[in-house]
């Protein structure tokens, strides 16, 4: 079979000593920067691009790819340990992952994240190998109207994952959307609500926002309530997941892989939606949804798998079309071009070494990552025993340096402080930051797609309903929202009766 010969060829390329070494370096660097808050794969890859000049193209790309999905593994670590999402895709992991850490189950959370990611990565790699072309065609069905509807669905997911009041979560989503509008207008280049601040002219950056709203506000909240914090920190349970835990995770991992893998193909924010969708699905199918938000292991397993599957499948538009779906892939395009390979639809046939070699090395990379990450779990868990009065300044300094290093900008650090305060205020008022963050991440793209769809339809809203895929997505969104709201109605009726 063609696939087998191609894969064998690919493994032949990937298993060369140099490529193995480069894969390992990429994974290590990726894990490191994933763990460090602020510094992300985009900045690191951009910095390492010149170094790759001296390397052969396949090797260079293997290393850079390793950095990318390595960072996904690392980002989950900080999400679980200190409630700081390294990337937008790790936001969901903070919800239950950090709660598990607070309950002394950090090791289990980390273990599940690593194993789930490994499984997802392997499966997703098979997706890419076998189904790259058909999946690309699937992505082609998505025009602006479909994207918009998909994102509406994504926002509905984010309200579902609210721990408390869904109404308040919707309000947070709106706030996130509002924050996303700050910056330069797409069409006219006019500055909107930037208050004349130069740094805001391209909008609010994700990292200061996430770090402030999640990381620093969590620190401040913890300082407020020292007794609550210390009681749970002294319980350290098992270091690694036991069979019980793994059994609970099998289905979430499978579902998450599938969901994340499919969504990751869609250029733009497809990969971000994966974990959110997976969390929403897990919460819905769980026998006891109230566990979610308080340390449900499925809430880590599903999204982490979705996360990693999406990271792998987001290579598909790059490898089959040559069109980068996100900033990291755009860098890969740059790397390929500099090495004389023009990315495009013909890469698969003109450069089989590159295509199949990369796919094979993704599989190898996933294996390396799980081997690197699992033993580290013990180390991370020990780290949690550091007295909080020393830990939080340490977290703080890492965040500050990380944020500073993104753009060499101290203004970014100031923004982080501001958002930290905002996050504290939100927590005080009983609002949840996760839906807001998703609203923010999706907001820019949503506005763009909304405007494009309306221009293409010449101002007619019916375009969202006329187009079948878009209609389907909107119906699903409405259904999910209804399903989410219904239990709270019946719960309220129960309350009335019991009182």
């Amino acid at each position, binding site marked *: 079979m063609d696939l087998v010969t191609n894969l064998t060829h690919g493994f032949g390329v990937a298993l060369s000593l140099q490529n193995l070494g480069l894969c390992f370096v990429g994974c290590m660097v990726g894990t490191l920067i994933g763990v460090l808050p602020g510094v992300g794969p985009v900045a690191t890859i951009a910095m390492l691009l010149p170094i790759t000049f001296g390397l052969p193209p396949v090797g260079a790309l293997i290393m850079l790819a390793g950095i990318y999905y390595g960072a996904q593994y690392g980002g989950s670590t900080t999400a679980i340990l200190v409630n700081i999402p390294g990337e937008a895709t790790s936001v969901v992991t903070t919800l239950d992952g950090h709660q598990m850490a*607070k309950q002394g189950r950090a090791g289990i959370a980390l273990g599940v994240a690593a194993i789930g990611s490994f499984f997802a990565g392997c499966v997703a790699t098979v997706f890419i190998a076998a189904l790259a072309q058909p999946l690309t065609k699937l992505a082609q069905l998505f025009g602006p109207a479909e994207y918009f509807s998909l994102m509406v669905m994504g926002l509905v997911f984010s309200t579902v994952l609210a*721990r408390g009041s869904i109404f*308040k979560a919707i309000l947070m989503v*709106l706030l996130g959307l509002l924050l996303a509008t700050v910056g330069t207008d797409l069409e006219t280049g006019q500055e909107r*609500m930037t208050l004349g601040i130069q740094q805001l002219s391209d909008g609010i950056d994700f990292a200061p926002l996430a770090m402030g709203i999640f990381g620093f506000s969590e620190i401040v*909240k913890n300082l*407020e309530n020292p007794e609550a914090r210390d009681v749970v920190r002294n319980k350290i349970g098992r270091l690694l997941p036991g069979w019980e835990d793994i059994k609970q995770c099998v289905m979430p991992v499978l579902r998450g892989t599938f969901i994340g893998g499919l969504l990751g193909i869609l250029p733009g924010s497809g990969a971000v939606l994966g974990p959110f969708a997976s969390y929403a699905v897990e919460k819905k199918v769980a026998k006891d949804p109230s566990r979610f938000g308080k340390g449900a292991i499925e809430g880590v397993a599903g999204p982490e798998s979705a996360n990693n599957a999406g990271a792998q499948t987001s290579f598909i538009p790059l490898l089959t079309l040559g069109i980068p779906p996100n900033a990291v892939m755009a860098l890969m395009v740059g790397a390929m071009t500099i090495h004389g390979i023009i990315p495009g639809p013909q890469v698969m046939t003109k450069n089989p070494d590159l295509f199949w070699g990369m796919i094979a090395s993704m599989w190898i990379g996933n294996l390396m990552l799980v081997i690197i990450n699992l033993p580290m779990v013990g180390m991370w868990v020990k780290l949690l025993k550091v007295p909080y009065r*020393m830990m939080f*300044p340490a977290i703080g300094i890492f965040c500050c340096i990380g944020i500073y290093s993104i753009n060499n900008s*101290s203004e970014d650090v100031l923004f982080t402080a501001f958002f930290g305060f905002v996050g504290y205020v939100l927590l005080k008022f009983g609002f949840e930051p996760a839906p807001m963050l998703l609203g923010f991440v999706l907001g820019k793209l949503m506005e763009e797609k909304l405007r494009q769809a309306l221009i293409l339809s010449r101002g007619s809203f019916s375009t969202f309903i006329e187009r079948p895929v878009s209609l389907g997505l909107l119906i699903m969104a409405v259904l999910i929202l209804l399903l989410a709201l219904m239990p709270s109605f019946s719960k309220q009726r129960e309350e009335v009766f019991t009182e």
Partner: protein
Amino acid sequence: MTDNSTTGSGPGGSLKTYNVSQDLCGGLFLIAVSAFFYWKAYPLPLGSLRAMGPGMLPVTIAVMLAIGGIILVLIGLRNGSARQETWHLRGPFFVLGGVIVFALLIRTAGLAVAGPASMVFASLGSEEFYWKESIIFSICMTIGCILLFKTALQLPIPIFTFF
């Protein structure tokens, strides 16, 4: 049981509260925020549906948020909703202040100064604070960071902006 949607206060500890509804305060906050955004977005051209201007979406969302805030205030005025927790500003002041200290010092004085300064300042936010321990820890941590970020990762962070 009313919806306890506050995060962070787990078992073993509880915070004092004011006798005001949390939702009421939250709703007022959102109304204020949406008013601010509306005020800023108001002068922007709205455009039409077929050619949406920069103002249309911010204004629409701000209005929706304001309505949501009003509803929240109304919910808050009912009896039985959760009470607003008291504010503890020592924490935010020192922790976030530490971040600000870092931002101000990193370019003017370099990491070697900004690191310890901001860490010590932030540590003051905790009720358990010991001067010697904090200073020593901050300096060690800063040295570690220098090795990690500057030497290992080759990031262009100013260490001493004197030379």
